[in-house]
């Protein structure tokens, strides 16, 4: 199995949503998340162009390239997520592999960024997705499975609208956050939806 199509879809989704991510990051942050998303997309495409298609090797390549170019908080955490996921995918396969990868990504981000669930970050989209992936390993069709993960990320993202930021730049402007989803959570939701849409071909957006 390879994940090149999924990664291509993620890159495309990041490029297409750059302006919206910048807009959201401007509300409580410094408005550079679209730039970061663009850099991540380029790094992913460069990794794909190497011709590598082993999943683990490809995840490492993506992680290193992202670390080498997208140095903002979210960019560095995405790099960490790829590198952490890469370590986890080696041991398993199929749904277990996906669930392990997502859980490793969450753990890596938490370790690197010191934020937890409820702090209004990308974790609030990624952690529910990882939980859904672990919970659904043995039930439903593949499409249902991916849809549930995707939905969990989206619900988690929407829940950030009522969360107070506990970390990063947004911490200094808590009152501006309410009513808007966290920009990093939106990025995660968009990326996972795009990846699973590419994987299943039928996922509802």
């Amino acid at each position, binding site marked *: 199995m390879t994940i090149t199509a999924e990664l291509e879809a993620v890159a495309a989704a990041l490029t297409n949503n750059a302006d919206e991510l910048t807009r959201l990051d401007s509300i409580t942050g410094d408005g550079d998340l679209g730039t970061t998303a663009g850099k991540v997309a380029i790094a992913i495409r460069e990794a794909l162009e190497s011709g590598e298609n082993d999943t683990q090797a490809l995840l490492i390549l993506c992680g290193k390239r992202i670390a080498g170019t997208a*140095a903002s908080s979210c960019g560095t955490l995405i790099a960490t997520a790829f590198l952490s996921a890469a370590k986890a995918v080696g041991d398993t396969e199929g749904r277990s592999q996906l669930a392990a990868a997502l859980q490793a990504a969450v753990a890596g981000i938490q370790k*690197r960024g010191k934020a937890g669930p409820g702090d209004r970050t990308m974790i609030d989209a990624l952690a529910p997705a990882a939980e859904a992936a672990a919970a659904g390993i043995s039930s439903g069709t593949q499409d249902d499975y991916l849809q549930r993960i995707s939905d969990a990320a989206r619900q988690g993202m929407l829940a950030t609208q009522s969360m107070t930021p506990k970390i990063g730049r947004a911490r200094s402007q808590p009152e501006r956050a309410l009513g808007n989803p966290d920009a990093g959570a939106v990025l995660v939701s968009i990326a996972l939806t795009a990846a699973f849409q590419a994987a299943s071909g039928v996922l509802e957006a």
Partner: protein
Amino acid sequence: MQKLINDPQHLVAEMLDGILLAHPDQLRSLGDVHSIVRADAPVPGKVGIVTGGGSGHLPLFLGYVGDGLLDGVAVGDVFASPTSEQILEVTREVDSGAGVLYLYGNYGGDLMNFDLGGELAELEGHVVKTVVGRDDVASAPKGEEEYRRGIAGLFLLYKVAGAKAATGANLDEVVATTERAAAALRSYGVGLSPMILPAVGRPTFEMPAGQMEIGMGIHGEQGIGREALGTADDVADTLLDGILADIDIRQGSRVAVLVNGLGATPAEELYVLYRRVHRSLAARDITIHRRWVGEYVTSLEMAGASLSILVLDDELTQLVDAPVRTPFFEQS
């Protein structure tokens, strides 16, 4: 946008090119022009000190690479973190085998990249320790020091760590002394006008004339609140009181003081602030053993100033007095 730049996208690379052309005897870049070390790195037997952070704060960060201060710097884009790859690259180049101290300010992106860079460096066998500057008392209340930003006081940590490393101390000793200094250091600032990010082209925030933001960060981050701009003496009192409320400085103490300009505030005004701080501390029987007044940590063309105070013990006194020679700063 009243700036002397070419394409904003190339500003940092061109600025670095200019600095490297100007000071080839003191600085050299690695493969990437954004990764810079002192020309004679690694200094045999000496602990290497690496810093990094966004551009737009000169002399911070790059300006403090040199004799008696830092060994290398990973330079980010304007107000943006450097990458972990740069940090790794600089670490390799400055490690003489005595280990490396990462010393930088508390900002999310910088923390993550230094941590990641450090992990990669450790995989290659480098011994790396980290001290993070969290001197800004306005950025989080007492008890939440963990969340405080690093601002101009970082210069004083460089001074201490650089002088300690220059004595030939080992990595643990350099870390211990630098941490002691960090615990005895506080800063507090005020912003009077916004800066313009070259890539954006308009002011990053609004600041009505006659207003000031107490406790504003060096990227324009919100502080304690916006108030009517007071006199220089009022502002000096606010800053000093804020620091003294956060750290107990006993009568008879010696301190080092930094009155720092953010970019557009003239040196004349900084000395008016210094005057008040000097007299107020003297009235409390606190002696200013050494002071720096000028632009040490800036924020592009922002107007405003900050006060930093480092409470000295005998060792710190010696270390702040030690000589320094970098392209941006000399002290004999």
